[in-house]
C-alpha cells in the first residue's frame, strides 16, 4: 500500500496552498513548514487533518533541524532521482540511512587513523583531513545552503532541479571553498553514501522495501545459486533481505 501513496513535492504543496509567492519564500516560510518539509522527504500516511500529506518523522539520530535534513534529502535525490525505473533516493529512505550512519562509527571514523600531525598530501596519499565524516557532512550541507543563497537568493531546497545540479556540479569540480576538506571530497562522500543507502540491506534503514535491489535486478540475500548457475537464461529472482532469513 505504501507504494501508492502520492508524493507531494514542495512545488505542488506551494501551488495547492497558494503560498507560492516570492514574498513568502524565505527563512520564515521554511521555518514554519516543518511538517511539510518532512513529508516531501518520506511521503507516507496520507490521512491528515488538513488534507495534505503529512508524515511522522521517524526521528533523527544525527541531524538536528529539518532544513539541513531537507538539503541532504534533495541533494541525494539529484544524485539518484526517481524515474520510470523506480524510486529515487528520498523514496528509498536514503536520507535516513545517512542520518543513522553519521551518528555511528561511520560518522566518527572510529576505525580509521585520525591522529596528527595533519598535512595536505598528494592525491595519491588519500584522505588527510582532521575532520570526521559527520563534520564533513555538516559543513558540506551548510555550504550547499550557502551556495544556493549566494547564487539564487533561495535555500537549496527551494531551487529548481537544474539549479541544484549546477551547485552540486560546482562541488564536484572542487569550486567551492570548504574548511579542512575539499568540496570535491564532500561530493564524492555524498555520492557514495547515496548509493550505499539505496543498495544496502534494508536493516540499515535505506533501500526501502528493497526498492533499490528491485530496480537493479539484484536478489539480495539468497542462500545458493548452485542449481541455476549453469543456466543460459537470465534469472529473475524476488529479492530477500537478511531480515527475511
Amino acid at each position, binding site marked *: 500500500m505504501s507504494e501508492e501513496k502520492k508524493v507531494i513535492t514542495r512545488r505542488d504543496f506551494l501551488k495547492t496552498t497558494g503560498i507560492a509567492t516570492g514574498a513568502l519564500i524565505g527563512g520564515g516560510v521554511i521555518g514554519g513548514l516543518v511538517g511539510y518539509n518532512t513529508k516531501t522527504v518520506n511521503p507516507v500516511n496520507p490521512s491528515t487533518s488538513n488534507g495534505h500529506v503529512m508524515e511522522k518523522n521517524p526521528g533523527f539520530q544525527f541531524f538536528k533541524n529539518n532544513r539541513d535534513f531537507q538539503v541532504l534529502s534533495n541533494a541525494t535525490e*539529484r*544524485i*539518484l*532521482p526517481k*524515474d520510470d*525505473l523506480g524510486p*529515487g533516493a528520498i523514496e528509498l529512505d536514503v536520507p535516513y540511512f545517512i542520518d543513522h550512519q553519521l551518528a555511528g562509527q*561511520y560518522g566518527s*571514523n*572510529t*576505525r*580509521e*587513523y*585520525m*591522529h596528527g*600531525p595533519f*598535512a595536505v*598530501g*598528494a*592525491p*595519491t*596519499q*588519500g*584522505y*588527510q583531513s582532521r575532520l570526521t565524516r559527520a563534520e564533513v557532512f555538516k559543513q558540506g550541507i551548510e555550504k550547499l545552503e550557502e551556495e544556493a543563497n549566494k547564487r539564487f537568493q533561495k535555500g537549496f531546497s527551494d531551487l529548481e532541479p537544474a539549479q541544484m*545540479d549546477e551547485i*552540486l556540479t560546482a562541488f*564536484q569540480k572542487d569550486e567551492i571553498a570548504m574548511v579542512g576538506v575539499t568540496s570535491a571530497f564532500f561530493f564524492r562522500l555524498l*555520492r557514495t553514501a*547515496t*548509493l*550505499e543507502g539505496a*543498495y*544496502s*540491506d534494508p536493516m*540499515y534503514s535505506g533501500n526501502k522495501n528493497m526498492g*533499490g*535491489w528491485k*530496480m*537493479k*535486478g*539484484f*536478489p*539480495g*540475500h*539468497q*542462500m*545458493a*545459486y*548452485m542449481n*541455476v*548457475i*549453469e*543456466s*543460459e537464461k*537470465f*534469472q529473475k529472482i524476488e529479492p530477500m533481505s*537478511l531480515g527475511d*532469513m
Partner: protein
Amino acid sequence: MATTLAKVDVVTVGLGWTGGIMVAELAKAGLKVIGLERGQGRSTEDYLRVHDEYRYAVRYELMQNLSKETITIRNHRKMPALPMRQLGSFLLGNGLGGSGTHWNGHTWRFLPYDFQIKTMTDQKYGPNKLSSDYLLQDWGVTYDELEPYFYKFEQTAGISGEDTNPFWGKRAHPFPTPPMKKTPILKKFEGATTKLGYTPFMLPSANLSEAYTNQDGEPINACQYCGFCERFGCEYGAKSSPEITVIPTAVKTGHYESRFNANVVEVIKSGNKVTGVRYLDTLSGEEFIQPAEVVVLASYVMNNAKLLMVSKIGQQYDPATGKGTLGKNYCYQILPGAVGFFDEQMNTFMGAGSLGMTIDDFNGDNFDHSDLDFIHGGSISITQTGSRPIETNPIQRDTPTWGAEFKKASIYNFTRTLAIGTQGASMPHKENFLSLDGNYKDAYGLPLLQMTYNFTDQDRNLYKYITSVTEGIMKEMGAKTVEGKAPITDYDIVGYQTTHNTGGTIMGSSPDNSVVNNYLQHWDAENLFVIGAGNFPHNGGYNPTGTVAALAYRSAEGIIKYSKSGGSLV
C-alpha cells in the same frame, strides 16, 4: 613490567594461512606451540548472516582497525610520507584466519620462471633487458623443489582445478577435486580465447566443487555459488580457510593453544638467537613475554617487516647506498584489464570468488619479449565472483557519474557488463621499499611502517601491452562496447587494487641479498623464521597464496629439523 610466561617450543605471530600451516605442522610433529593473534577467534557460525555488502565489503568488517595501526605512504623518497588513514588500495586482514578468511580462493603455483627469473631472463635476453635499477634476483629455491609443498597445500585446502594448462610447471598429482561449474559467462571467455588461439582452463579454486575431507580429517563443503566470497567469510565452510582446516588440526593435537587479543610489539633478540616475543594483551593492557625455542613471524607482509625493524633484527635497506636487505624489493601487482558492455542480461550477481577461467599465454616468459619493453606478464582471467549493487555501478566513460543518466546506465549495465582482469607481475625497483616512519606512531607507541612505492616503466609498459590483449578478448566475446582500463601513472592508495603486497623480508641464497634463506630462516638469528609473501623477491603473475603456502610447508619441515639438530638449514 612484563610478566614472563613458561617457555614453549614454538611461538607464532599471526594466525592466517601461514601461521595456521605452521601451528598445524609443528604441533603434529609433537612440538608445544602457541599461536598469538592480535584479533579474535571466529568460526563458520560467525558467517551465517554474512550476505551483507555494506558491513563486510564497504565498511570492511573483517579488516584491520586502522585507528590502532596503519602504514604511511609516499611515492618517492623526496615526498613527505603521510598515514593511510582509510583502507583502500589493499585490505589488511585481522583475526583468526587473517586474509585467509576474506580471500577469494584463487590458488596458484608460481611459474618455474618466477623462481629463477634473473638467470632465465639473462640467459634469453642478455643481462640488460631491464636496467640495473630493477633488483631482479633468483629465489634460492626452484619450482621442482617446491612441487611437493604446493601439492601439500592443495591437499589441505582441497583445491578444485584441471591440469590442462600447457604453461604451468609440471604437476606430480591431479588436483584433489574437479574444477568448478563452467557457467555461460565463463564459456563466452573460453570460446573467445580458444578462437584467438589461446589455451583457456578453469581457475584453480579454494571454493570447492564438491565436499572433501583433507589429509588431516578436516571436512570442507561444496560451494553454493552464493556470490559473497571476497571480503566475506563462508557460511557453508566451503571456502578453504585456516579456521576450518589447519587451526582445528593444530587444536586436535592437544599441544597447541591459540591466544587472542595478543598484539606482539617486539621480537627479543640476544646474540645470534631470539629468545621469544613481547606482547600486549589488548583487553587487559598487560604486557607479557612469551619465551620460545623458535619464533615464527607469520603475520602479514607489513607487520612481519615492521616487527623486524622495531626489534632491530637485520639491516634496513637504504636505496641511496643499496646496502641492507630489510624492507627491500617491496612489490605489488599490476592489474591490466578490459570491461565489456553487452546487450543481453547475464546472471552476474551469482558466482564464487574463484569461479573463473584463465589463460597463461601472456604470463611469465610464455611469450617472446625480445621486441617488448618489459619482462614477465600476467595470468588473464574472467571471474564470476558475484556482482553486488553498492560497489558495482558500471557505466561507460562518457556517462555522467550521478543523476538521471547515471541511474539508468548503472542499472541497465548491472547485469550486462563483464570484466577481464589480469594478475600482472611486479618487478622490484631500487626505489620501492619499506622502512620505519619517523613521525607517526601506532596505538602501542611504535612507529608506523613506511611504504615508499610507485609504479615503474616496466609496470606501465606491461600494463599497456596486456590491456590491449584483454580488449581483444572482450571484443571477441561479443561485447557491444569495450573499454580497456585507463593507463596507470602514479601509484595511488585510494582505490582498491589488490591485497597482493609482497617483499620486504625476501628470501634468497645469500645474506647479502636477502633477509631469510630458502627455509625462511633468518640469516641473523637461526631460530627466527619469517613467513609470507614478504619472502617474494618479486611478485609473479598470479595470486600469491598458493606459493606463500608452499614456502610455509617447506619452512615447517625445516623448523622440525631445526628443533632436533639446530644450526643453519642451508
